[in-house]
């Protein structure tokens, strides 16, 4: 067998295949004896469960919000960092730090900032903000915002560095020509920079997509594992690892597959082949 085939079968096909199989059974640590085949029962149950739809909605909203912000902030930072200026290296370092620094440490700062465990006037004020926010948008809204902010804070810097690498890989003549022909920087950004960055943006969206849907770490670290607001990833984890309900957990996480495939198709069309860049 070709090495690539071994890799695909071992790393991708086997675990996915196993998960698909598990999702079609009643496999659970709570049952005695071997799991029995139940067909699509787990999926049908999922469809009837309002909690699932809620979690799906939250997950999609989480994805849209964080991705939008990460792209906007990341692109702005990348463009700002593209030109030479004094102290560029320092700024570059500062931009890269949130992503490079261990999340488990930085999350403490966020936790203290948003939900201070000490009794200070700041803590009281933040508590007030939290209650007001939750009162306005529903319980869990503040937690949702916290996790989203943390994700954006960490992810935007990564997106920026990623897009900056993309910008630097493009021939400078393309931007020189744009300077000769466009009326202002904004027009140049819309007509030239953004389209040229398209493949990199598509990849950034895809990376953001996967973190949003599989983002357990950020949610877990900020909420301490409590399901303050449901995201499919945490739900599946909770069910599978904590409760031993493997079959339901598998069905839940596999329910994301159609979404992922759709996103991949759209993004790869958008990505267009790198061949296009040969000129």
């Amino acid at each position, binding site marked *: 067998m070709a090495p690539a085939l071994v890799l695909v079968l071992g790393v991708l096909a086997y675990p996915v295949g196993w998960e698909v199989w598990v999702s079609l059974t009643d496999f659970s640590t709570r049952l005695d004896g071997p799991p029995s085949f139940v067909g699509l029962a787990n999926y049908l149950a999922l469809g009837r469960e309002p909690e699932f739809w809620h979690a799906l909605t939250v997950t999609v909203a989480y994805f849209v919000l964080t991705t939008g912000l990460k792209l906007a902030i990341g692109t702005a930072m990348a463009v700002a960092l593209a030109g030479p200026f004094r102290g560029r290296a320092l700024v570059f370092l500062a931009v890269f730090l949130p992503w490079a620094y261990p999340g488990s440490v930085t999350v403490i700062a966020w936790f203290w900032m948003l939900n201070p465990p000490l009794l200070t006037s700041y803590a009281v004020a933040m508590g007030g903000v939290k209650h007001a926010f939750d009162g306005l948008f529903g319980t869990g809204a503040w937690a949702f915002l916290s996790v989203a902010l943390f994700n954006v804070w960490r992810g935007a810097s990564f997106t920026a560095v990623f897009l900056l690498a993309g910008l630097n890989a493009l*021939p400078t*003549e*393309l931007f*020189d*020509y744009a*300077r*000769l*022909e*466009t*009326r202002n920087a904004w*027009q140049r950004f819309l*007509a*030239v920079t953004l*389209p*040229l960055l*398209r493949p990199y943006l598509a990849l950034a969206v895809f990376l953001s997509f996967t973190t949003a849907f599989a983002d357990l770490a950020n949610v877990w670290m900020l909420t301490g594992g409590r399901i303050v607001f449901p995201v499919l990833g945490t739900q599946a984890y909770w069910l599978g690892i904590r409760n031993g309900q493997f079959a339901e957990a598998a069905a839940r996480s596999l329910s994301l597959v159609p979404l992922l495939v759709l996103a991949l198709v759209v993004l790869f069309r958008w990505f*267009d082949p790198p*061949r*296009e*860049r*040969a*000129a």
Partner: protein
Amino acid sequence: MAQVVMKDLNKKYDEVHAVKDVNLHVRDKEFIVLVGPSGCGKSTTLRMVAGLEEITAGEIAIGDRVVNDLPPKDRDIAMVFQNYALYPHMTVYDNMAFGLKMRKFPKAEILKRVQDAAEILGIQELLKRKPRQLSGGQRQRVAVGRAIVRHPQVFLFDEPLSNLDAKLRVQMRVELKRLHDRLETTAIYVTHDQVEAMTLGDRVVVMKDGWVQQVGEPLELYGRPSNRFVAGFIGSPAMNFVDVGISEANGAVWIETQGLRLKAAADRTDRLRPYKGQKVTLGIRPEDIRLASGSDTPDRTFESVVEVVEPLGSEILLDMKIASAQMVARVEPTVRVKVHEPIKMAINTDRLHFFDLKSEAAI
């Protein structure tokens, strides 16, 4: 249609003084070529005209407007880049229309201009393609077309042919020249290739280390180089140089070095006399060295040994040693010589060049 005037133009980066006191008057409809080795400041000069580089000191005027503080888009110039700078995500049509679209030209006008330019360049069939589907020559044509549609006052070319293979380069060179005859637009063209410079330029500006070395018509540069650098840069194979002593005897000025003793032509004696007893650099074009015949007097011949023969078809290049210098002679294709055997060569002493040893200026 416009002239371009550069006055005491300077460009300084933190450490590097890239362009030094350039004064240049590009006449209306003229095709002027800036040529020189890399780092000579030619591209920086062009980019200052375009507005892509800020001017450190001095002044540039296009037409009758000083453009120092004008943004590039308002300078009424169009530039063609070495790597074509075509947008990969746009079709050829959109690439050519880009500048006009950004300037909010009416659609019908854009269509007409693009089609006209495409016709001139013979790329009508390519308008719907993407740049990646084009050959290097076709991309170059699109890049030129993109400049033509703008109907600018001045064309700026930054080494536009450097990425093409040799054959295509020669072909595009001719096309560019034809195009210029047709459009009659002032053009400033930057290249490191002296052949391109000589064939394209109405006038050629030779630059080195940020300084203009000489400005002149191609044959003027070739025939009367103002210094040793220009003499060596223009012409291929390059001019031969050898350091010689100057002496006077029997009413004539003599040029001497080991294995070589030539009588200076009468019209050079006055200029050489002040160098009596000193050394100067002698420059000899390869075509001014030939096989000696019986009628050649000893005061214009020398003995040598041919080390390498390069038969080019239309001519033969002979690499030979004289004194401690290596020399190249360009001789008729019918000449047959044997390597490593003594041979007698003659020099066309009417066409020798002399340069001051220190200042390198032509004597």
